[in-house]
């Protein structure tokens, strides 16, 4: 779409990062969400058991929680999988994350300070890893969740090699 006058620059958009994350991430996010909802439901049940007399409102709340849990864990992971993407170009690392609220982060390769990879217990269960790329700013770490471990290791190795050549980090 070009502007009406034709003299201005064409309307631009940021393209999506090239790579999807590993498909197993859907199940990882589902499990994570279910675990959180399990805690909430457990608290509600605990309160319900302690209640004497009228338990009707309690049952209603429990039903609401279960409904929300089912909706959230069905929708969120699939939505996330379509949003979460990453890419490493020779100039920059580019990620997109989130679902309802989304955030794209771009960090120049020349400003990268550290590249870490991490595997939490739940991630290990689904054979996944995440990679964190930090810059000198406390506000700008790029996190790539739900990568296959091989991909993560490879990415870390490539990024480390690429950044080692350029020690400048703008501090």
């Amino acid at each position, binding site marked *: 779409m070009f502007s009406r006058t034709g003299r201005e620059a064409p309307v631009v958009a940021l393209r999506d990062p*090239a790579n999807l994350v590993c498909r197993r991430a859907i199940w990882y996010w589902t499990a994570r969400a279910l675990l959180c909802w399990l805690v909430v439901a457990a608290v509600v049940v605990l309160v319900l058991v302690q209640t004497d007399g009228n338990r009707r409102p309690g049952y209603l709340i429990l039903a609401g929680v279960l409904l929300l849990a089912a909706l959230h864990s069905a929708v969120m992971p699939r939505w996330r999988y379509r949003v979460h993407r990453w890419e490493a170009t020779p100039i920059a690392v580019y990620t997109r994350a989130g679902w309802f609220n989304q955030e794209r982060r771009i960090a120049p390769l020349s400003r990268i300070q550290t590249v870490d990879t991490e595997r939490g217990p739940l991630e290990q269960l689904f054979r996944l890893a995440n990679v964190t790329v930090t*810059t000198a700013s406390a506000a700008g770490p790029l996190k790539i969740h739900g990568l296959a471990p091989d991909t993560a290791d490879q990415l870390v190795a490539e990024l480390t090699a690429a950044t080692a050549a350029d020690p400048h980090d703008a501090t």
Partner: protein
Amino acid sequence: MSSAPPVTDLAWRRLSPRMLLIHPVREVGRAVPALAGLLIAGSSSGHEWWSLLALALVMALSLLRWLTTRYQITAQQVQLRTGLLRRRTMTTPIDRVRTVDVTAHALHRLLGLAKVAIGTGTSDRKREGLVLDGLSAEAAAALRAELLHRAGSPAATVPPTPPAEELLARLDPSWVRYAPFTLSGVVTTLAITGLIWRIVSQANIQADQVAIIRSASRHLHDTPAWLDAVQAALGVGILVTLLSVIGYLLAFWNYRLTRHPGGSLHVSRGLITARATSIAERRLRGVELNQLLPLRAVGGARLVAVATGLRVGRGAERGGTLLMPAGPAGEARRVAAAVLNDPRLPIQPVLHRHGSPARRRRYVRCVIPAVLLWLVPLCWWLAGDLPGWLPVLGILLPMLAVLLAEDRYAALGHALIGRYLITRNGSLSRRQVLLRTDGIIGWNLRQSYFQRRAGLATLTATTAAGQQAYQVVDVPAEAALRLADAALPGLLNDLLVPADSSVPADSSVPADGYFPFR
């Protein structure tokens, strides 16, 4: 400066022996609660000498602190060794020194001493930097000059004559009129009230036995309630004004902002506690013009440095970022331009507005919560439990929200002028940041669901300086991309595509297959 003793020395040196006079006073002051406790416990059990022993112990410890603290300055690093049982050596490479902050409290000034805090701007919150508490004032000044200027040029040539400094700003006593419109008066009042409250409750004084309070309460008893409220408000207002003026004078008397040819900015200020902060200009990434609503209402502003190594409001470095205290906004703008020293930068830059979607969003986000909040007393009143004037008064809430929304929209703006990205936002606390583009180390482009529908985005420039992140709030998504592209040319080159051909990226690329470096 040439007459000062050489500050680089391979020997381990002690801090000024005059600190022997300061340490005991300070330690005893710090130990007063414990000593008082001991005194009371001792006198009740007939062992008064306990507290004397404790006092002696505290004094001895403070002497030991001086004895065990040594520092060394070599061509490469500053080292500080402290501790008796737990020896600790702190090392700061000289080329990492970003700020040198010289402070002299009242006691220090009596004895001609100063405390030197050397900031390296580490992101590690646990390290507060290296503090040499107690050098002679001349040695402190010489050390500051040498650390900053040597760090600036690896060749390490200290100019033989004291260089001429350029005066950028100084305190105009009439600026005191802005003092009541800062938060400091309120904060001081609260602090003093808290202190008095603690003394009263600890000393077990019955409030109704103090003559002033008794007469005041009797006076209030005789007058109608609305007059009481007016009197109380007037009293608090006078108190806050008085305290804020006193606080302003204490903190900013003798304020001077100068530029040294060696490449650093110096801020010196303070009536009783003299404080001098130096910021290496190569660490300066921009400035922030800061206006709380009351200050803005009377046309005032503060100016704060955005520099690496100076975290805003953090521990010992707190206040170290201030470039100009509350003063006329026009003067603050002039000082900002003088500090940044970019001829392309006008004193009052014209900003791009963010348009009607952004305005709509401001209204939605202000008015809806206000209406919901107003509904609470309304429903309560309908249920019949509340006097009718509360929901009537509550209608003010949505009206105020409309004003707030309009003002918040009026704040939004951004521009890219010369080497600087300029962004402004906020109503209750309005901030205009001028950030040098070469200090930007990445972009975060955030879009909530509602922002995506409105075609807006919040662009965050991340940086190693100041607040670490500066936002361009609710800018049209396309303008955000153009801004980011223009500010850091080249970075977005192959990430930008024409909008209508924005085919989703090729999902046939396997999740673990794309590496551009091969």
